[in-house]
């Protein structure tokens, strides 16, 4: 029964073919075939998930002899359900949204092909199938982003995406070759079994295979998930149709996290690669969040928001919390997909109500509302700092008491604490007639979110990595020595605590000393407003390469 996994990508492929062939006969009605194919794909993927939840064993289903097969395992089944669901929603949404666009049928054919390719990618059972699907996703996205063939800018930014994806494809090719040469097989289960049997194999120059392959796979994932320095395509790819943005932000951009999870049996034997993954993810999360906050263009802001979230997802892999990264990418995908598909509704709402807050005098005189109150800042600062940490520790302790032995878990709790503190700080910032009621409600919401999140992430861990020893070894591979870890965490905590206290104090006393920004702050603002000049640098490099190529062609004009 689990052989249905082979039929899963065949359904959208067949609907793409039928939509294309019947496009002339049925006209725009042909896209109903695509939607029907989407429903069938979703039903099949839900069936497969049901099978695995009922205890069906994982299998590799082969079509070819040396390559060409799909995996039926928890990761592939979970991801196929997400892809099938998001892609069906996008198709249903597009039936009306894209109705007036030229190339209407072509758009649905491309969507079907993209769905099939994504399904193959997440379930690829061998390195060649993975390479093919990985490469094809970039190409299909290029044509989806450039759906409006009249728009030069759509293609220009689509090209940024394509070239970044191609740059990211190449390390994966190298990793595949390296693993093939070292373990003499294209099949992923055989490669992983080979690694488990001989994790210390070395390659050229005496370098360890797992470290090099892990690094190359991570590089490929960075390009796909818009990590810092390979991120510029993401905020600028909004020129494409909104359904494509939804599909991209809800699904395609998550491919990096899926790839790292797929290669977990490689990373479990690595020594330093996960640390680098953590650093890149952390840096991306910070840069993405800073750039998101500094944008005045809502779409670019959403793009940078996704970049920040992808940074968090990669960071989670870097601390060994692989299953949490999968949970994160699903949650973020659904959230961001909804935001994009709801964009039209938000614009309509904004036309009815500008949403500009009234002044205090207006609300007091006209709306007859009482003035707002703020509580003493030391009490609020203490609540902000103490409550989240208490809730987080208690909920995690209830699920897994040994969790605090894992460094990765501590780091994630640390980030949860900062997020919770920021949430509570916002209540102080809002100002209300009944601040304690607001604080109470926010704490209750926070408890519910944290408990839900803890339980779901724990369930994901059990589902994706049922072998608890393997999961523990992943955390171990991401660990550093305990003294360095404690020092780093202590310094970070001190900085955060002092930062919060200062913010509260300044806020309360309306410190006007720093009303006018200094030159350092202005310099930083200039830097972020120009997005760290990275786009300018890449444009400059691209122009110079093209210019050098032209000069070379003039110089060698005879052939």
């Amino acid at each position, binding site marked *: 029964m689990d052989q249905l996994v082979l039929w899963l990508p065949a359904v959208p492929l067949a609907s793409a073919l039928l939509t294309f062939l019947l496009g002339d006969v049925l006209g725009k009605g042909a896209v109903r075939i695509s939607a029907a194919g989407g429903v069938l794909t979703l039903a099949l993927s839900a069936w497969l998930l049901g099978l695995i939840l009922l205890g069906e064993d994982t299998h590799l289903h082969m079509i070819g002899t040396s390559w060409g097969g799909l995996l039926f395992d928890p990761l592939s089944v979970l991801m196929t359900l997400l892809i099938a669901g998001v892609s069906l929603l996008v198709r249903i949404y597009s039936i009306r949204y894209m109705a007036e666009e030229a190339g209407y049928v072509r758009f649905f054919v491309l969507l079907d092909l993209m769905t099939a390719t994504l399904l193959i990618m997440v379930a690829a059972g061998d390195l060649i199938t993975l390479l093919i699907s990985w490469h094809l996703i970039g190409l299909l996205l290029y044509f989806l982003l450039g759906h409006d063939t009249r728009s030069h800018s759509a293609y220009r930014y689509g090209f940024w995406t394509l070239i970044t994806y191609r740059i990211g494809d190449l390390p994966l090719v190298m990793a595949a070759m390296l693993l093939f040469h070292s373990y003499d097989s294209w099949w992923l289960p055989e490669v992983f079994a080979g690694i488990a049997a001989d994790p210390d194999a070395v390659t050229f120059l005496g370098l360890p295979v797992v470290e090099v392959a892990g690094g190359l796979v991570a590089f490929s994932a960075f390009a796909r998930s818009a990590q810092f320095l390979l991120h510029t395509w993401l905020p600028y790819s909004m020129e494409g149709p909104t359904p494509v943005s939804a599909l991209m932000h809800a699904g395609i951009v998550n491919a990096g996290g899926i790839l790292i999870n797929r290669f977990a049996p490689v990373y479990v034997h690595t020594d330093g690669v996960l640390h680098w993954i953590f650093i890149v993810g952390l840096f991306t999360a910070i840069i993405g969040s800073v750039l998101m906050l500094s944008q005045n263009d809502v779409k670019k802001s959403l793009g940078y928001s996704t970049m920040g979230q992808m940074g968090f997802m990669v960071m989670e892999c870097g601390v060994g919390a692989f299953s949490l990264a999968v949970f994160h990418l699903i949650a973020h995908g659904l959230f961001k997909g909804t935001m994009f598909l709801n964009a039209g509704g938000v614009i309509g709402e904004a036309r009815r109500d500008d949403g500009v807050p009234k002044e205090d005098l207006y609300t007091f005189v006209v709306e007859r509302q009482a003035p707002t109150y703020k509580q003493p800042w030391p009490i609020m600062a203490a609540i902000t700092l103490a409550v989240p940490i208490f809730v987080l520790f208690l909920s995690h302790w209830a699920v897994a008491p040994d969790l605090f032995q894992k460094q990765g878990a501590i780091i994630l709790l640390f980030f949860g604490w900062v997020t919770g503190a920021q949430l509570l700080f916002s209540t102080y910032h809002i100002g209300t007639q009944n601040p304690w009621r607001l604080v109470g409600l926010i704490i209750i919401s926070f408890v519910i979110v944290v408990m839900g999140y803890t339980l779901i992430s724990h369930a994901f861990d059990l589902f994706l990595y049922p072998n608890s020893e393997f999961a523990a070894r992943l955390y171990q591979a991401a660990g550093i020595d305990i003294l360095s870890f404690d020092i780093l965490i202590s310094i970070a905590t001190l900085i955060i605590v002092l930062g919060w206290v200062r913010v509260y104090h300044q806020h309360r006393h309306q410190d006007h000393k720093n009303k006018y920004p200094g030159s350092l702050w202005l310099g930083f603002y200039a830097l972020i407003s120009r997005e760290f000049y990275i786009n300018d640098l890449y444009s400059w490099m691209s122009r110079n390469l093209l210019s050098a190529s032209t000069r070379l062609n003039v110089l*060698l004009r005879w052939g």
Partner: protein
Amino acid sequence: MDTKIFLLAGVFLPLFPFSIIFNALFERLSHPILRGIMLLFWPLIGIYLLQMAQRPPPDWIIAWASATAILYGFRLISMRDVGLWIGFLGTSAWALLWVGFNANIDHSRLYLSALGFSTPLIMLLILAAHIKVRFGAAYTYLYGGLAITTPRLSGVLVFTVLAATAAPIFPAFFIMLYNITLSAPAVIIAMLTGWLLWAWAGARLLQGLIVGPQAGGQIKDISRKLAWLYILLLNAMVLSGLYLPGKWL
């Protein structure tokens, strides 16, 4: 004797500066049929010559071939004349066939590899001739908007360019992967760099032809028959790619 054979073969499996001979000749012969014959037979002659050698080519020739592939890939990104673009891509791709000789693979595979690189180039050549008939020149960033004016032509053009630039799942993709499995790390990096440049050049070629508002007045599209012929050929290429070089992996 072998060195002389290698140098002579360097004209047909182009090694810079011998590659200039092919490209200069290709530029002079403007007739599409003559150009097509050149694209088909030029690398086959090179393979035939190399079969006469008693030993595989030395590593320095492989390095030379890799450098040639990168050089022509780099020149390709700014080439706007579609005819010369085809010649440059052929030069860059055929240079990589030296890797197979170095690895001592079966000669039939080398002939098939050459055909896998050349066939989409010949198909592209025919499309370039159609563009030239309609617009007076097959030149990128000159008129654009083919997707609107001639949708069938631009549709098959997109897939042919993808096949020529070794996109999956066309034969050239598997040939590239197969060559990579035979190569040393430094050569792999050179091959991947060349491959990246092809993708860049392919995207620029398409953007310069198919993107943009409708150009000029009413332009006649290619016939449905020709479009279907191209679709059949492209499908045949996909199948042959999966069953020939795809099986070598």
